[in-house]
């Protein structure tokens, strides 16, 4: 492992760089895992505040896992009693102005079902699928993040897609 350039992260500029680098992707993972009811972005903030408080103790190379573990534990503390809920971003009217009312209605229904289907996916499948397809992480990156082999990641993504398809088949466009 290469020697880190600096000894610790107790420096506002370094710290802000870390924030820019990890905050959003951490927030995404938390969202994919636990849904949005538990305010993933708040947990990310709290995790970063914890990191700042412990900045002298946390080695720079351990920052990422520290953040992930901290935020994940905060989530787990709350998650027990909560159902995973997803919400699709409200359809912007602009997106479909040329479409027929039937199309808009179908789309609405489609997204509603999608939402439900996503919530019912196995957590590991959902996380892998969304990291890959939404965040654009490669299979290899997804595998790294989740600590599994590339093959497993690939399979989870595929399994997720298939389950989603089964749930949404009725609404298939003719």
């Amino acid at each position, binding site marked *: 492992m290469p020697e880190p350039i600096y000894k610790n992260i107790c420096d506002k500029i370094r710290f802000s760089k870390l924030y820019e680098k990890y905050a959003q992707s951490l927030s995404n993972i938390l969202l994919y895992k636990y849904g949005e009811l538990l305010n993933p972005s708040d947990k990310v903030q709290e995790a970063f505040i914890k990191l700042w*408080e412990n900045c002298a103790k946390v080695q720079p190379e351990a920052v990422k896992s520290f953040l992930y573990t901290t935020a994940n534990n905060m989530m787990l503390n709350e998650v027990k009693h909560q159902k995973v809920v*997803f919400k699709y971003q409200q359809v912007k009217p602009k997106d479909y102005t040329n479409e027929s009312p039937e199309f808009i209605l179908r789309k609405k229904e489609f997204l509603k079902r*999608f939402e439900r289907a996503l919530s019912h996916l196995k957590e590991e499948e959902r996380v892998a699928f969304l990291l890959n*397809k*939404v965040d654009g992480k490669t299979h290899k990156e997804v595998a790294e993040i989740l600590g599994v082999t590339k093959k497993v990641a690939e399979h989870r993504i*595929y399994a997720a897609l298939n389950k989603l398809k089964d749930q*949404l088949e009725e609404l298939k466009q003719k």
Partner: protein
Amino acid sequence: MEKEQLIKKWLNNNLSVKELEEFNDLEDANLYKEIIDEAKRFGGDINAKVTSFDVLDEKLIGAKGNSIGLVKIVTRLVAILVVGFALFTLLNKDYEDSFNTDLAQNEIITLPDNSTVSLNELSELRYNSSKWDVSRSLNLKGEAFFDVEKGKRFDVNTTFGKVSVLGTEFNVISRDSIFKVSCYEGLVQVVYSDKEVKLPAGTEFTLLSGEGIKSSIVTSEPYWLKNMSVFENASFEDVIKELEKQYDIDIQYPSNLDVQFTGAFEHNNLENALMSVSNPFKLTYKIDNNSKVIITNGAN
């Protein structure tokens, strides 16, 4: 190619042109595409957007470092102490009672131990009621009659001296240049300029130009308590002054009068009072409506 393999490859964006055609021919191809497209709506960049670092930064200042935390704790402690102290002193504040009388006004004050003080006009009495149990001590300016319950030492502090008693009735005047203590019952001790005088019942003490004179009194209590002013061989000037004070009036009188007045005037009837003062010297008086009285020689 097997369907699963095809889809997996598609998911990994690994399809060759030929394979892509094959995929597009799949019955569910459009649905797959739609699922992937619409999945973007559930993305964390939209649904779990983190705040900018600046927002976090503000929170970090509060969390940063133990030294700041310590300062905060210390300031909080200090604040609590200050507030506590302020409350403590406020609640334990000595309540000083003070009474003032105006012209021609008497007031009877009952002290915490049921001793009574009759405060004559233009007088001021101050004492600390919360410490009354510890020391019966009060400050007097002017004139007052005391009827003291038996108990600890009872001190009356005046600018001229201190009057101490055990349980008694006495009158104190400490006004302008007059200092006079009259004892009607019990024993009173007067301390003035390092000297000490004991007054048994029926005696009074007057301080005149630094010299104390002891004399006997006949009345059982001072006349002003009965709304009278009593004089014995007083100069006419003193009598007029007292009249002016009691009735809050201006009196013009012949300045060449050299007479001594022994007698009294009452406080609630100006006509009677003027008569009592002027008749013995064969003087006449005239009351102007704007609280002015002119006393002239009986000649006219």
